[in-house]
């Protein structure tokens, strides 16, 4: 570009911003950052606080009321009977233990399956294969939850495909029961565990792995000392999904669980057939407390930023 020295120096013309209302608002807001923050947060907090927290609080209060056994109406007399019943009833203890056991097993199975796949996707597969694999993991999420649970009912049924495939090896279908529930729930939540772990592994730079190798780290020690600490929050994030989704499930256990009950079933029957909302609310306190304890325990890992 040549510059013509005789031409008058060109002045950049900066248009004076017009004093529209939008402009004034913009100026005012950029000077008042607290106001900006409260405008940003007011709508979502109004929604979450009013819709959700108020509803939860109301539910907890309901747990302290009773149902009039004659009219079936909720009577607002304060009592801790429901909570005592839930805490001391052997049915509730058994079902709680069973539910937590199922949720823990599902979570462990999912993490064990998800780790190698996520690692392959993030660190071994070519970019093209990587993209196809993510699609392959995401796609089953769109087949209805119910249809998938029912498909497992069909797979595990007597004379179903599982027995059909296993019979040459002398295997049996586990039939309907807790093992079937665990298999089905692990299946349903697996993509929710793979995706955060995959995202976590993608954030581990390859150069770190190479540095570890250069410094003499073997495969296992690199995985244990470099990779695992970095993806730990992502693993916890995945576990929150599988754990909490399993903890509240009552439909899968109805479809493949035989006669077994989980906490969700107890809540469901007390809301519906038994028409005892206070007792249902008291039972619902159990998963609420468990999840709160879990979230409190994992908060320091930074997992909540990895969901």
């Amino acid at each position, binding site marked *: 570009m040549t510059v013509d020295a005789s031409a008058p120096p060109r002045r950049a013309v900066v248009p004076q911003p017009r004093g529209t209302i939008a402009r004034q608002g913009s100026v005012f807001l950029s000077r008042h950052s607290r106001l*900006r923050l409260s405008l*940003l947060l007011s709508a*979502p907090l109004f929604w979450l606080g009013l819709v959700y927290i108020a*509803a939860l609080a109301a539910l907890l209060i309901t747990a302290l009321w009773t149902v009039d056994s004659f009219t079936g109406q909720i009577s607002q007399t304060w009592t801790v009977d429901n909570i005592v019943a839930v805490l001391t009833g052997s049915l509730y203890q058994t079902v709680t233990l069973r539910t937590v056991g199922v949720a823990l097993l599902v979570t462990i199975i999912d993490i064990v*399956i998800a780790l190698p796949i996520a690692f392959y996707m993030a660190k071994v597969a070519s970019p093209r294969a990587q*993209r196809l694999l993510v699609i392959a993991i995401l796609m089953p*999420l769109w087949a209805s939850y119910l249809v998938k649970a029912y498909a497992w009912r069909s797979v595990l049924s007597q004379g179903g495909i599982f027995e059909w495939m296993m019979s040459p090896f002398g295997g049996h279908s586990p039939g309907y029961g807790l093992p079937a529930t665990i298999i089905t729930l692990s299946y349903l939540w697996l993509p929710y565990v793979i995706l955060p772990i995959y995202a976590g592994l993608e954030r581990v730079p390859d150069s770190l792995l190479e540095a570890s190798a250069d410094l003499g780290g073997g495969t296992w020690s690199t995985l244990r000392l470099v990779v695992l600490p970095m993806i730990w929050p992502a693993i916890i994030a995945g576990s929150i999904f599988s754990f909490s989704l399993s903890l509240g499930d009552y439909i899968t256990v109805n479809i493949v669980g035989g006669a077994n009950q989980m906490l969700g079933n107890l*809540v469901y029957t007390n809301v519906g057939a038994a028409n005892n909302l206070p007792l249902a609310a008291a039972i619902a306190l159990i998963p609420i407390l468990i999840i709160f304890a879990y979230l409190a325990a994992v908060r320091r890992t930074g997992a909540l*930023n990895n969901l």
Partner: protein
Amino acid sequence: MRLSRPARGLLAAITAVVLALIYLPLLVVFVNSFSTSKNLTWPPPGFTLEWWAKAFQSEGALEAVLTSLQVALAATAVALVLGTLISLGLQRFEFFGRDAISLLVILPIALPGIVTGIALNNAFRTGLDVQLSILTLIIAHATFCIVTVFNNVIARLRRLGTSLEDASSDLGAGIWTTFRLVTFPQLRSALFAGGLLAFALSFDEIIVTTFTAGSSVKTLPLWILDNLFRPNQAPVVNVIAVVLVLVSIIPIYFAQRIAGAEKVVR
């Protein structure tokens, strides 16, 4: 760490086996949608297109799909707005109680659906004295969809930093202009990914839906639950599931392409 060839092969094999396991039940669904057996015996005694024809004529199913689309679109729209607002607030400002708010966003998805369901049901009916309808359903869905948008957007904001926004305001752009021309274009793919997850979450939700939908509102999962155990309807349900999976390829493919293109640019 350099993986040996056998180690890579082993990882590939595990991935292949698990993918096969993931698709096995879906394959069963696919095959059963052509099966002449009404109660899904295996192997199928014969094949027919009857269920496919029936599915596309089933008014209940089509209506349910439309209802689910409406609910999922509305809930996603609300979640996109609220999720973006809250992530801007939490990422761009330091203040007391920030952790509590991010916990608050996560809570509706971390607590089991049945807790959310009965809490909202109780609040709507006895607390606010409103009739359950499609509106209460949308409110409930939006509540637990916020988190997917929030997570995607806040992760993006964290990575972007503020330098481009600062440059924009140094050059004289007001906050609206900066958001419209600088922040929003950079958030677009995160919004798409978060919105897609929110949509999928709402479209397939059954537990919260059971408790917050009015009796006249039939979403697709509710319709499926009604029909799954009816012998003449189960194969039709399978057809719908197959169609959903096939149709879902389109948005997932686009989401991946947008994400992939951005990775190259950076």
